[in-house]
C-alpha cells in the first residue's frame, strides 16, 4: 500500500474540516496523518488489516517461501498415509492442532500446507495484478489526462478497445495463452503463477486508467497547478509533485478493490481449468479440485473457501475504509445534525465516490 505523501500546496479538498468536528482537531496535521487517523478510526477496516496480515504472515512463515523453510512440518506435495479418512484433527476443546489440523486429501497430503501454498500463490497473483494494473492504469490514465491531444486520443481508444472485451473472456484467453506459453518454453510451473498475474493485470487496468484520466483532467486545471507551471516547473515535476499525490486516494482505493476481484477471477479461471496448473496450488484450484468432496469430505472444500472469502472480504473492507479515509464526503451523515449545522461542504467534485465500488473496480465474475 503506497503511503500518501504530504502535499506542498494548501487548499486541497482533504483539509476541509469534517462535519461535526471542531476545526482545531485538524489543524497542523498533514494529509497522511489525517488519512491514517480516519482509517484507524474505522473498526471494520482495522480488523480487516489485522486479518489480512495474519493470513499473509501465516502463509509465508508456515511452509516458508521459495528456498526458505517454514515452521510447519509438512510440505504441500509430500504424500503420506491417510489417517482417519483424512479428517481434520483441529479441535477447540481442548485446543489442539493435531497432526493435520485441516485434514488430508486422498494422497495423504496435508491440507493446511496446501492451503498455505494456495494462499501464497493466490496472494502473489493478486499482488502482481495490483502492481501491473496499478502501474499501467496510472501511467496510461495520467499521460492521457495530462497531455491530452493525440496522446489522449490514442491511449483512450486503446482503453476502449480493451474495456469492451469482457474481463472473463479476456482473462480466460490470456490464461490459456499463459499456460501454453509456459509449457512450450519448458519453464518451471511456478512461472504460470507469475504469468497469470501479469496477464490478468494487463487485462484489468482500463477502468483504473479511465478514472485516473478523469482525476488528471480536473487537477491540471486547478490553480495550484497553474501556479507551479508559471513558476517554471517541468511537466515531470508537476505530475509527480503536484498532481499524482492528489490522486493517490483514487488509485489506492481502486487497486485494492481490483485486487479483491483478481483473487476471485483467479478462482473462476481455476474452475474453468484455465487458472494455476498442477502441481502448484492456488485457493481456486484447491476448491475446484475438491468440489466433488463437498458432501463427503467437506473440509477439503470449506477450508480453502474460507481463506478466499476471508481475503476478499478483508480487502473489500480495507478498500471501503480507505475510501472513507481519503474522501470525507461520505463520513458520518446525520440528518438531524445536518439540519442544525450547515457547514462543511466540499466544492470539488471528484470521481472518487464512483471509483470505490466493487462493480466499478472490475467486473464480478458470475
Amino acid at each position, binding site marked *: 500500500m503506497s503511503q500518501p505523501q504530504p502535499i506542498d500546496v494548501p487548499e486541497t479538498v482533504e483539509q476541509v474540516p469534517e462535519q461535526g468536528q471542531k476545526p482545531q482537531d485538524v489543524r497542523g496535521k498533514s494529509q497522511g496523518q489525517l488519512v491514517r487517523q480516519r482509517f484507524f478510526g474505522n473498526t471494520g477496516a482495522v480488523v480487516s488489516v489485522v486479518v489480512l496480515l495474519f493470513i499473509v504472515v501465516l502463509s509465508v512463515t508456515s511452509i516458508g517461501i521459495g528456498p526458505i523453510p517454514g515452521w510447519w512440518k509438512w510440505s504441500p506435495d509430500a504424500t503420506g498415509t491417510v489417517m482417519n479418512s483424512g479428517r481434520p484433527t483441529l479441535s477447540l476443546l481442548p485446543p489442539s492442532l493435531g497432526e493435520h489440523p485441516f485434514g488430508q486429501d486422498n494422497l495423504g497430503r496435508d491440507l493446511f500446507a496446501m492451503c498455505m501454498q494456495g494462499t501464497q500463490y493466490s496472494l502473489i497473483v493478486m499482488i502482481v495484478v495490483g502492481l501491473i494494473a496499478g502501474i499501467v492504469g496510472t501511467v496510461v490514465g495520467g499521460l492521457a489526462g495530462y497531455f491530452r491531444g493525440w496522446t489522449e486520443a490514442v491511449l483512450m481508444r486503446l482503453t476502449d478497445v480493451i474495456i469492451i472485451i469482457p474481463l472473463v473472456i479476456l482473462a480466460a484467453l490470456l490464461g490459456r*495463452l499463459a499456460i501454453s506459453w509456459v509449457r512450450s518454453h519448458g519453464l518451471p510451473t511456478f512461472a504460470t503463477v507469475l504469468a497469470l498475474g501479469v496477464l490478468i493485470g494487463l487485462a484489468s487496468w482500463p477502468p483504473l486508467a479511465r478514472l485516473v484520466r478523469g482525476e488528471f483532467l480536473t487537477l491540471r486545471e486547478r490553480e495550484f497547478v497553474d501556479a507551479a507551471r508559471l513558476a517554471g516547473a517541468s511537466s515531470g515535476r508537476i505530475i509527480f509533485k503536484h498532481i499524482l499525490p492528489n490522486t493517490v486516494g483514487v488509485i489506492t482505493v481502486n487497486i485494492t478493490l481490483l485486487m479483491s476481484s483478481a483473487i476471485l477471477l483467479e478462482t473462476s479461471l481455476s*474452475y474453468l481449468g484455465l487458472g494455476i496448473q498442477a502441481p502448484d496450488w492456488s485457493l481456486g484450484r484447491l476448491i475446484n479440485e475438491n468440489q466433488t468432496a463437498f458432501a463427503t469430505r467437506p473440509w477439503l472444500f470449506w477450508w480453502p473457501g474460507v481463506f478466499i472469502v476471508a481475503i476478499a472480504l478483508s480487502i473489500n473492507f480495507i478498500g471501503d475504509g480507505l475510501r472513507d479515509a481519503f474522501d470525507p464526503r461520505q463520513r458520518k451523515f446525520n440528518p438531524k445534525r445536518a439540519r442544525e449545522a450547515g457547514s462543511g461542504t466540499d466544492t470539488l467534485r471528484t470521481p472518487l465516490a464512483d471509483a470505490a465500488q466493487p462493480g466499478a473496480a472490475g467486473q464480478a465474475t458470475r
Partner: protein
Amino acid sequence: MTSYILRRLITAVLILLGASFIVYLMTAASGDPLWDLYGNPNAQQLIPARVEALNLDTPPVLRYFTWLGGAAGCLVPFADTCSLGVSRDGQQVTELLGFAMTQTIMLVTVGTILAIVVGITLGIVSALRQYSGLDYGITFFTFLCFSLPSFWLAVLLKEVVAIQFNDFLQKPVLSMATIVVMSLVAGVIWFLVSFGQMKTRLLMGALGFVVTFGIIYFVLATDWLNHPFLGIPLIALTGILVAVIATILMAGLRNRRALYAALGTVVVGLAVYFLVQDMLSNGGFLTILVFTVVMTAAGAAIGYLAGGYDRGQGARVAGVTGFFVALLIILDRFMQSWPEYVNSSHIHGRPIATANSGTPGFTGDFWATGLDRFTHLLLPTICLTLLALASYSRYSRASMLEIMGQDYVRTARAKGLSERTVVMRHAFRNALIPLATLVAYDIGGLIGGAIITESVFAFTGMGQLFVQAVRNVDPNPVMGVFLVTGIVAMVFNLIADLVYSVLDPRVRVKA
C-alpha cells in the same frame, strides 16, 4: 446530438474492429485447434476435413479478414449473407449464438432486475441509516456475497434451496420448538438491524418474532407449500399493505384521497377477481399483459377521479397499487396450477430444479410451463442476484450519501419539507443518475459475464459456448460470443452516456 451519436457510432465500429482483431489473434495463438484429433483413429480423415472447414491453412491475420468479410455480411439486412463461420463440429456459429443468446437472456434478465431493485433499495436504506446496525449488517452481507466464489455459492444453493427444500416438501412438518427457535432468530435479526432508541428496537425485535412465527405457522398449518394460494383474504391483506406503502412513499399518508383511491383500487381488484379467472385460465402471456395494463390504468383513473390537491400524485399511487394487485391475482392463478404441476409424472413431487432451463419432455398449459420455468430459474436467479448485489448497493449508498450532503438537500430541509419529500423527491432521484451509467455498463458485461453460473446450472448459454470454444481452441464461436458481448457493451455504453446527459442537465454532449 445526431452528429454526436453518429461520431460515437463510427468510433464504436473502429474500436470493435480493433478489439475483434486482438481477440482473433489471441484465440489463434492460444493452442492448436486440431489437438483433440491427434489420438483419434480416424485422424487421417478428420484432420484435413477440419483444416478445410476452419481454413487453418491460412495464417491467422489473413483468416481474420476472411472472417470479417463473413461478419460484414450480417450488416446487410434481409440478404442472408451473414456468416460467422462454423464451429469445429461444423455447426453455423450464427445458429449456435441464436440459441445461446435466448438461454442467457432468460437466465440473466430477472437476476439483473432483482439485483438492481434490491441492491439500490439496500444501498439507499443503509445510506439513510449510516453507521447503524442495519448499515453494518447490509455492508457485511453484500461484501460477503461479493467475496463468494460463484460456483461455491451455486453448490450451496442447490444443496439447501433445492434438495433439502424438496425433501422438506415431502413431509412439511416442523416441531413447535423449531418454529420458536426460527422465530427467535428472526426476532434477533430484526432487533439488530433496527435503529432508534432501545425501546423501539426491542419492539421491532418482538414484532419480528411474532410476524415470523405467524407466517411459519400459517404456511405449515395450511400445507401452503404444497397447495399455495392467496385467495380473496390474502390478496386483500397484501393489497392493502401495498396501497399503504405506496401512499407513504409516493404521497405521504396525509394525502388521504390518494390513500382512499389506492384502497379503492384494491377493492376493484377483488371485485374482478372471480370474473377474470376463466379468462386467465384460457389465456396466455398476452392476457396477463392486457390484464396488468387494464388494472394499472383503472387504478390511475380512480386516483385521478378521487381528485384532491394533487390529482397526479393520487393517480400514480393508485396506478402502482393497481399494478401490484394485478400481479397478485396472476400470482394466485399460478399458485392454482402448482399442485398439478408438482405431481405430474415428470416432476415426481420435487419441484425446485438444480439443472437446465426446463424439464425435458414436460408439456402443459401456459401456467404449468410458466411454473416449470420458474422452478428452473429460481436458483440461478438467486445466485446471480446475490453476486451482483454488492456493486449496486455500495454504489447507491455512496451516491446517496454524497447527495444528502449537497446544498440543495439542505435547502430543501431548511424550507421545512418533510423528510419523505426530501429523500424521495430531492435526494433519491438524483442519486439514481450515476446509477444509470453503472446499470448500462453492467448489462453490457452481463451477456458474457454469467459463465460460471451457466456452467454450474447446466444452462447452455453464451458463457458455456465461450468456455467450450476456448477449451477446444475453436476460434469461430469465441469470436461470435465476443462480437455479441462487444456490440452489446458498446451500445449500452452509448446509451449510458446519452441517458446521463438526459438525466443530468449539467452534463451536455458535445454536439
